[in-house]
């Protein structure tokens, strides 16, 4: 894999996440502004409540209670509306980043072509990255990033307010704040250490249940389901024991948070109480009033709230970093210089002309193909042979344009830009058989033409293997269809496409000899009848004896022409 290279030039996940955010940072700015506004509304709300109480107790005749309450209600509506805006802006930020990333994943596949795509990850993994991994970024942008701002700004605003009211109370709050993250980090590291020491065992036990489910038919044939069920329970219990060992320590971290905030609020209340009572005559305690005391008391829980929310969003960050690490390599452009397409070959009788073509994959020391000179005439049936690893598939991919050469030039006739491709496993698309056959052709294809093409490919539509005829459903991963059937359906699709160039990469390698023979007979008869140019990579005798010309590759070079 290219990602294993010591100097792969890949950005580190943290800066990568940051860079993805940059074009959309106005949303972060919006979230921060809304959050700050909400904090100010909170201050106003707390002040109005404290003032109302103070006046009601000490100067009830000067209290316009209705107006104060109405003002407080406005502040409350403002506060929660702004908080909703803050969270909404966070989600918009996440949405913008995810949207852009998904577009780029689609484009990366198109830009780099099937060969590089498969080289990096199997198609199932691409889908998983597109759907799940990208989604894993949500928490980072929607909660964690705004959280990093709020965890500074909100306590700062509240601290300034409290300091203005009573600097000793502010000092108490200020002292408790840095202690919390420090202790939490300490405990977090402890939990992480336990988790690391037993991670393999945890993973094995976590996967045990699914593994036994997947092997259920084996278990049944072995008459071992009851024993397996007992083993599932035993594994779950063991998993619980290990998990609880980690959790018991990890929960200490949130307990510390709770402890400090509860104790700080309690201490504040006691300090204010004793101060109001006149039991403390130190510093500003003497000038405390019910208004300032209550004001501070109502603000105190708000001071710790962003810290608590930030701590909760911390695992969002971890999930996003993990996702970034696996997403970034997929978006890297396929390495190496590539020569530009060179137009059509000089002679109209030539289908494809390769001159001095060279291909090198980014992670290999030796070029996969060296100095290939090859001229393929129209209507030729060319077999490309050679031991596995000799570059057959690379040559076919090159002809198909799935790969750009690092050197030399490829000329393909203008009318051959569209072609029929048949790989080792034909990809059938989710839908009906009819949908799959229609795919090859721009114009609507009649049922009769489809029946005819299927029959020619050796799979008559009334065959018992196609229970619902053209409406036979084809599922994810060609479910319900055998390998031989899939190749025949792909061949029928090719027949309907009517393209004069067919490129086939070991189309029969997964088939048994009899099926292979039947398929090849159909293919070569068709090619002869319609003057089709055929290039077929194969290592089997059956292909070589039917071809009009054989090219043998060895270690990336054309070895002999027969």
């Amino acid at each position, binding site marked *: 894999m290219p990602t294993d290279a010591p100097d792969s030039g890949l950005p580190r996940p943290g800066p990568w996440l940051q860079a993805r955010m940059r074009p959309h940072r106005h949303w972060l700015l919006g979230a921060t502004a809304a959050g700050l506004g909400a904090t100010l509304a909170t201050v106003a709300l707390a002040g109005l*409540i404290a003032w*109302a*109480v103070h006046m009601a*107790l000490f100067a009830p005749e000067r209290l316009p*209670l209705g107006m104060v309450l109405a003002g407080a*209600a406005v502040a*409350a509506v403002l506060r*929660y509306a702004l908080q*909703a805006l803050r969270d909404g802006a966070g*989600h918009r930020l996440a*949405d913008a980043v995810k*949207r852009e990333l998904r577009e780029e994943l*689609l484009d990366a596949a198109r830009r780099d072509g*099937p060969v590089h795509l498969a080289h990096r990850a199997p*198609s*199932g993994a*691409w889908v998983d990255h*597109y*759907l799940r991994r990208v989604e894993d970024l949500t928490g980072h942008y929607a909660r964690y990033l705004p959280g990093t701002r709020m965890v500074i700004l909100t306590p700062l605003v509240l601290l300034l307010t409290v300091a203005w009211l009573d600097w000793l109370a502010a000092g108490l709050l200020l002292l408790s704040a840095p202690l919390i993250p420090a202790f939490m980090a300490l405990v977090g590291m402890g939990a992480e250490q336990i988790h690391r020491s037993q991670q393999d065992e945890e993973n094995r036990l976590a*996967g045990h*249940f*699914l593994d036994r*489910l*997947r092997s*259920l038919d*084996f*278990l*049944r*044939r072995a*008459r071992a389901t009851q*024993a*397996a*069920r007992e083993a*599932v329970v035993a594994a779950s219990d063991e*998993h619980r024991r290990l998990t609880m060992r980690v*959790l018991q320590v990890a929960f200490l971290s*949130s307990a510390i948070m*709770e402890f400090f905030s*509860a104790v700080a*609020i*309690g201490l504040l*209340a*006691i300090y*204010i*109480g*004793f101060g109001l*009572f*006149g039991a403390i005559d130190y510093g500003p305690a003497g000038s405390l009033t*019910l208004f300032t005391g209550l004001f501070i*008391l109502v603000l105190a*829980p708000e001071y710790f709230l962003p810290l608590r929310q930030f701590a909760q969003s911390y695992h969002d960050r971890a999930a996003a970093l993990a996702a970034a690490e696996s997403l970034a390599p997929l978006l890297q452009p396929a390495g190496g210089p590539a020569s530009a397409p060179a137009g059509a070959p000089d002679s109209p009788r030539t289908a494809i002309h390769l001159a001095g073509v060279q291909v090198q994959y980014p992670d290999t020391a030796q070029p996969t193909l060296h100095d290939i000179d090859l001229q393929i005439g129209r209507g030729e049936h060319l077999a490309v042979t050679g031991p596995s690893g000799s570059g057959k598939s690379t040559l076919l991919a090159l002809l198909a344009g*799935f790969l750009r050469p690092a050197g030399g030039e490829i000329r393909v006739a203008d009318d051959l830009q569209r072609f029929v491709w048949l790989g080792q496993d034909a990809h059938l698309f989710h839908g009906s058989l009819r949908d799959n056959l229609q*795919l*090859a052709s721009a114009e609507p294809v009649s049922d009769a033409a489809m029946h005819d093409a299927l029959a020619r490919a050796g799979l008559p539509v009334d065959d*018992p*293997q196609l229970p619902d005829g053209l409406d036979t459903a084809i599922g994810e991963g060609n479910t319900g269809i*055998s390998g*031989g*059937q899939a190749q025949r359906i792909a061949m029928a699709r090719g027949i309907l496409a009517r393209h004069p160039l067919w490129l086939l990469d070991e189309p029969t390698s997964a088939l048994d000899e*009899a099926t292979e023979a039947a398929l090849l007979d159909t293919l070569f008869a068709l090619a002869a009848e319609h003057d089709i140019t055929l290039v077929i990579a194969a290592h089997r005798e059956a292909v070589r004896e039917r071809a009009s010309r054989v090219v043998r590759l060895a270690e990336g070079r054309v070895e002999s022409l027969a």
Partner: protein
Amino acid sequence: MTDREYLQRLFASRLGWSLLAWLLLAVTWVSGIVLLALSGWFITATALAGAGMLATLDIYSPSGGIRAAAVLRTVARYFERVTGHEAVLRILADLRATTFRQLARWPARSLASLRSGDLQARLTSDIDTLDAIPLRVVGPMVGALLALVSAVAIALWLAPPQAALLLLVAAAITLITAAIAATAGQRRGRRLVREESNERVALLDYFGGLPELTAFGRLEEHRAALARRAREGAARRLTQERAGVLGEQGVQLVVMLTTLAMLGYALHAYAEGLISGPVAVLLTLMTLGLNEALGSLPGAWWRLGESLEAARRLRETEAGAEAPEPAGAEPVDLPPGPLEARGLSVGFRADRPLAGPLDIRPEPGYPLVVHGISGRGKTALLETLAGELTPTGGELLWGERDLTTLDPDTRHRVIGYLPQRVRLLDDSLAANLRLGQPELSADRLWAVLDQVRIAPLLQRMGYSLDYPLGEDAGNLSGGQARRVALAWLLLQDRPVALLDEPFAGLDEATEAAILERIGPWLEARQTVIVTHAPRRMPAHWPRLAL
């Protein structure tokens, strides 16, 4: 049985752990409320005393109460989380056992659907949703109820009933807001799940079908459709998240407005002389303290709907069951055989048989070799003979009994079936070979491993029987895994052996070496072998071409 009863039965055995967790959650919230309310009362009382408006005040016991509430809250929170997760993980084990038992009773054909990644993912996520019910659904509801009851009790004790009434009204409004938000959210949520599964299929076609799409010039079209789908999906997710945010902040606003109403009422009651000043502040801050408990309701309500759906889906696994779980006990009356097919036709649909009618009665000493090009029903024939696929016509007999009516466990005692692909366990080599017969000696295992020519390989590499095969036998090559499965079959002493391409992928010399060693075992029973290279089988074995 309704879904609710199903859940009750499921959680009944772990009720003790759950009750403890709920109680601790309530203690956490109530001590939080007490902390705030008592602090408010305390500073108001001290302010009045300091101003000489209150004659006597014991400032030490309230401050002790404040400290106690602060510590109690922390301790209760910690143990609530520990016991809650203990309950969750215990329920998880129960759920896995129940689900496993139900799936083990599924008919063989339906088990194929378990191989779909989609179903597996859904099953695990449903189990995860369900096991969290006590912690994340019932817990907040019980905790919020207890916190509310405590607050109402305090209000009734200290103030006229209007204060308590106000709290109840606020709780009712919160609950209704939560319920409305959750119902709408769940409806959209179901749509989201459905759309995402469609999107997944379209993506598989794009990334997996890239060569075909490029060749046929359909790439741009497909990409544009996917981009449109992604935009629509993103818009839907955004709406969903926005609804969640509004529900959450909405409930907080309700609690805050209630607090202000309580403040207005309490100051009014104070002015009327019904309550004291400190009590007025206590009532106000107590209401404010309820926001933690009531704020958890939208989430809990939301998850309630999801949980009921997960329960419904998991219960569907029960519906697929066909027979009681194999008990492993000796059945009473099993005829001695033989396996015989009369006029048997096979296929996946009755109106379109793949092969047949066939009369088959393999004799010991003469294994039947089945061959023919792919797609002609060779595998379907073996599956039918194994009793795992219903015949489309004719009779399949064990002695004079209809084989298809035997319960699966009894059937597995007589039929040894080796399909083309066996998914071995992620466990040691020995554990796989001993599956069903834990008492087998190491010598026996080495003997069969030698027969399938795996033993020399292991000895050369210095591996023992404890060699871990890895997930889906990832530590073995495909051919080696098939040979391990074959070795497992050789350890079974069953009167019928049905083998589907047991030598596929092996070179001819290895195949001949294995065949020579297992020939006697194959000839000692009724055997059917499907192969694509019949010429490699002994000449005196009868052939059947499909």
